[in-house]
């Protein structure tokens, strides 16, 4: 019963969200609801604001000087921009994987253990070890690195590094995973593996993914949002966006006429 309920209530509700970088308006008046336990894809041409929108959900825009966010963003009904919300704690519930995998200059094990150690998630002896294994298994990397846990993480292949940073994010047990073009530096095989993984992960997590690849959005997402010049043009079921979009700009973009 609970699953059905959470599927009905949106994970995120954005109303009138605008983001400015200094004088530049990156996002304008966005209204969007993001469903839990599903994959939502954000597409649009470069500079359309899709990455900015993604970073609204874990308040990462605040690390950029001069960035201002306005509007309401509710996560499970709570305003995450309320003064009482600590962005540091918010980020433990909303994990993020970036375009370029950036493993810390430490061992594979220490990379995954980074978050749990930071937040004191594994107190008992051996618990951290189990948590690291669980996270690496979920990220589909365990079999490849189980004998190399003490090796420096930067020595892994790019595809493995991307799954490592995913495991690193999963280790602190978030509700949401944000992905900013996670496959853009991966080869087709590593991309296919990552997509299969996203398919698996959406059973547990709310996943929001920014992608440049329309084929990827069509393959993995349940709903797709098309952004253009900082505005949300169209937001619908993915198969509808790609077969029968209602806006001509969406039509033009997905058929490759611009962007």
């Amino acid at each position, binding site marked *: 019963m609970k699953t059905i309920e959470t599927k009905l209530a949106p994970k995120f509700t954005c109303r009138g969200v605008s983001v400015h970088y200094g004088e530049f308006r990156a996002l304008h008046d966005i209204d969007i609801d993001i469903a839990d336990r599903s994959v939502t894809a954000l597409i649009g041409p470069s500079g359309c604001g899709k990455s900015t929108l993604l970073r609204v959900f*874990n308040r990462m825009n605040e690390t950029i000087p001069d960035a201002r966010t306005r509007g309401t963003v509710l996560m499970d009904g709570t305003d995450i921009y309320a003064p009482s919300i600590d962005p540091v704690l918010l*980020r433990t519930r909303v994990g993020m994987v970036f375009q370029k995998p950036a493993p*810390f200059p430490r061992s594979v094990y220490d990379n995954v253990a*980074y978050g749990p150690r930071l937040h004191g998630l594994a107190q008992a002896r051996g618990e951290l070890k189990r948590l690291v294994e669980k996270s690496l298994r979920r990220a589909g990397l365990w079999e490849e690195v189980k004998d190399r846990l003490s090796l420096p993480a930067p020595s892994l292949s790019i595809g493995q590094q991307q799954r490592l940073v995913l495991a690193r994010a999963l280790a602190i047990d978030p509700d949401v995973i944000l992905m900013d073009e996670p496959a853009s530096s991966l080869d087709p095989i590593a991309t296919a593996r990552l997509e299969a993984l996203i398919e698996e992960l959406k059973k547990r997590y709310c996943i929001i993914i920014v992608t440049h690849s329309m084929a990827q959005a069509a393959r993995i997402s349940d709903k797709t949002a098309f952004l253009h010049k900082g505005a949300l043009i169209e937001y619908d079921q993915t198969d509808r966006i790609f077969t029968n979009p209602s806006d001509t700009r969406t039509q033009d973009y997905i058929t490759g006429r611009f962007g």
Partner: protein
Amino acid sequence: MSDPVPFYMLVIVGALMVGAYRIVYGRAARLVVPNLPGPSAARAQPRHHARLAAALTGLVGVGIYLTGLSLRGPIPSAGGDGLWLMALIVIPALPIALSIANVRPDFAARTHVERMAETGLMLLALVALLTTFGIVASLVFEATLFFRDVSIIEFLFGTQWSPQTPIRAGGTGQSGAFGAVPVFAGTFFITLIAMAVAGPVGLMVAIYLSEYASPRTRAIAKPAIEVLAGIPTVVYGFFALITVGPAIRDAAAWLGADVATQSSLAAGLVMGVMIIPLVSSLSDDVISAVPQSLRDGSTALGATKSETLTRVVFRSALPGIIGAFLLAISRAIGETMIVVMAAGRAANLSANPFDAVTTVTVQIVALLTGDQVFDSPRTLAAFALGLVLFVITLLLNIGALAVVNRYRIRFE
């Protein structure tokens, strides 16, 4: 007339090079190049022929000039400058003629220019290398002379240093003591005090500047701190002597202790302040160079700014920070002026920071200034000190490089 070969001859060589360049360039520009299929030397541009000609002319010209320079001393030439002048003008005609003859479609001037550049760079690198070897060789040579008079064991392990005692009184042996332990101990002790000041302070300054300061604060504070590095060390020296030393003495007196104005503490503190900008500036550069993606990755995992800093940024910047510290240590070891003024010249073997001590560099200055017989042990001791200091800094650098490389191999 025994003045050296006049300088204007070099000017002539320069003029000849320009001439060669222009003549050959003109010839090569008029060269009709058949459009041959496949790789061809004709792909060389007129500038390649011309550069080659200029370089060849310059090489011959400078060769004649240097030959003249070395021969004029022992052999007074009959023709005076005129003969050399003639040679300088006539002989370079050969390379110019050769270059003109080489202006052919099948002459690979471009390849030769490439090889010439490579050779030139290698020669310049060799100059730096040979200079180092020369200095080391001279140090070793003079130090060997010293160790004929004083046993190496006594020098390295002796705890008495008093080279001021007159030596060689009629060949009946020496009364000077050349145990270098107190001198080296003084150097390391003062370096230690200086690093205890400059290490933490410099690092904190770097972290503040790179991570917390607003761009405006940074724009003002960074140059202001770097001004510290521009103050002449002699100014630091009398700051230590006039201000810091007495302040330490007064503070000690207030606490009931009786200490001298000159102390290793005064010298070390002031030296520490002097090398703060060295540590902070270099560390700031390496900390700023840590990729933003690493910081973002840590922030997205719910780390606070200071957690990201200590657990990710600092770790990534560590090789560079070690490098900065080592440069600072070398600077501290080599520093002389502050120590002369603030720490005294007494070769005490003491770990009490309120005692006067002396350092290797100060002793080298003391040994080599004044009227000295050059081959006396007293003078030669300076070379022995220099040699040991050189070996120590060398080992320090090698060790640090090894640490940094091991770290790099592991994590890059």
